[in-house]
């Protein structure tokens, strides 16, 4: 079937066709088929026309369309993205300019408050690993009694001791001190000698202090 055949089917029945057209049609379909299809198309058009003409025009919809059209026409002006972006940019620049102007007119000298007492400047920081603390101790000197003979002032002795006795005891003590081994071993001296010694030379843990 081609377009020419379709056109003939839509417009003419077989009897209305010219001799050439009949010949053309019969090459493709029979006369009966042609008439049948022509009838179908004619009735189809009729049916469609009938059904369309049976539809009443809805005036309510017309009013709705007009109203909607008017409402939409407010938003009819469609702008491109570039235009919107340009307007936004201009608005932003204007806003910043206005704000900058307002800021500059309202600008006040800043109030400076001096609130600093002392500033210590640290020039160099030494990092050390160990801190040495110096501790002072009393040094106890042990005097070797053998090296020097103690000098005993007579005034330190009791007043009732005579000069001869003093000399005697001096020699005696010197002798005892030279033989201090005996003293260390706990060997007792004579009573008088001890008294004399303890008076002149106070003893602390077998060490003589302050003796020169």
């Amino acid at each position, binding site marked *: *079937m081609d*377009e020419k055949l*379709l056109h003939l*089917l839509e417009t003419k029945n077989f009897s209305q066709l010219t001799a050439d057209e009949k010949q053309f049609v019969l090459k493709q379909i029979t006369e009966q*088929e042609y008439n*049948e*299809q022509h*009838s*179908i*198309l004619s*009735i*189809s*058009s*009729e*049916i*469609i*026309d*009938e*059904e*369309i*003409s*049976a*539809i*009443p*025009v*809805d005036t309510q*919809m*017309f009013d*709705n*369309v*007009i109203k*909607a*059209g008017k409402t*939409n*026409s407010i938003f*009819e002006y469609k702008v491109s993205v570039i235009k919107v972006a340009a307007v936004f940019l201009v608005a932003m620049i204007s806003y910043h300019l206005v704000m900058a102007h307002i800021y500059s007119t309202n600008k006040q000298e800043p109030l400076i408050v001096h609130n600093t007492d002392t500033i210590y400047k640290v020039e160099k920081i030494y990092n050390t690993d160990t801190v040495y603390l110096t501790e002072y101790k009393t040094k106890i000197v042990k005097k070797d009694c053998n090296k020097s003979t103690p000098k005993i002032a007579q005034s330190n002795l009791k007043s009732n001791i005579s000069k001869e006795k003093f000399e005697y005891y001096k020699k005696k003590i010197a002798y005892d001190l030279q033989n201090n081994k005996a003293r260390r071993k706990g060997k007792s001296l004579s009573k008088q000698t001890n008294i004399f010694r303890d008076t002149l030379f106070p003893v602390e843990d077998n060490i003589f202090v302050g003796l020169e």
Partner: protein
Amino acid sequence: MNKKSIIISDEELLKQFCEGNTLAFENLYSRYYAKLLYFITQMLGDTENAKDTLQEVFIKLIENKCKFDFNRKFSVWIYSIASNMCKNNFKHNAVVKKAEAEILHTHSKTEETNTTTNEKKTAIRNAIKNLDIKHKQVFILRHSYSFSFKEIANILEISEGTVKSRMFNCIKKISEHKEIQEVK
């Protein structure tokens, strides 16, 4: 519809409407309401849904009235809008059953006394109704508004060859329909 509106072309009416003449739009509305509603109903199968879609078509017409290329044919343009709207609204399954009910309802109003013709009409009506959407839209556009194959191709955004092929298939399918065979 007055006499003047019949003489004036669709394109001229649209031009007048674009210039602010609402009466021109009223004429266009009257001319296309029934045909478009029939076409959309056949596509969607639901009269209520079709009415909503048709309303959107007319609103779109108002919104784009001044964007129309006046070198084109108005009828092709408005049917293209309707066809695209139908594509957006397609709901195949629920649709077909409702369409059947609507068509039968319409049919009962147009009953004829001639039984043979009536039987054949019913058979053809049912045969058209049973066409699939792709074939049906080609057939209806061809027979409701007598669009050329090229115009149908433009409306449906398919090739002219496809339109012709679908049209031939339509005739074949209708003539082979059971009820028509029985009427013979």
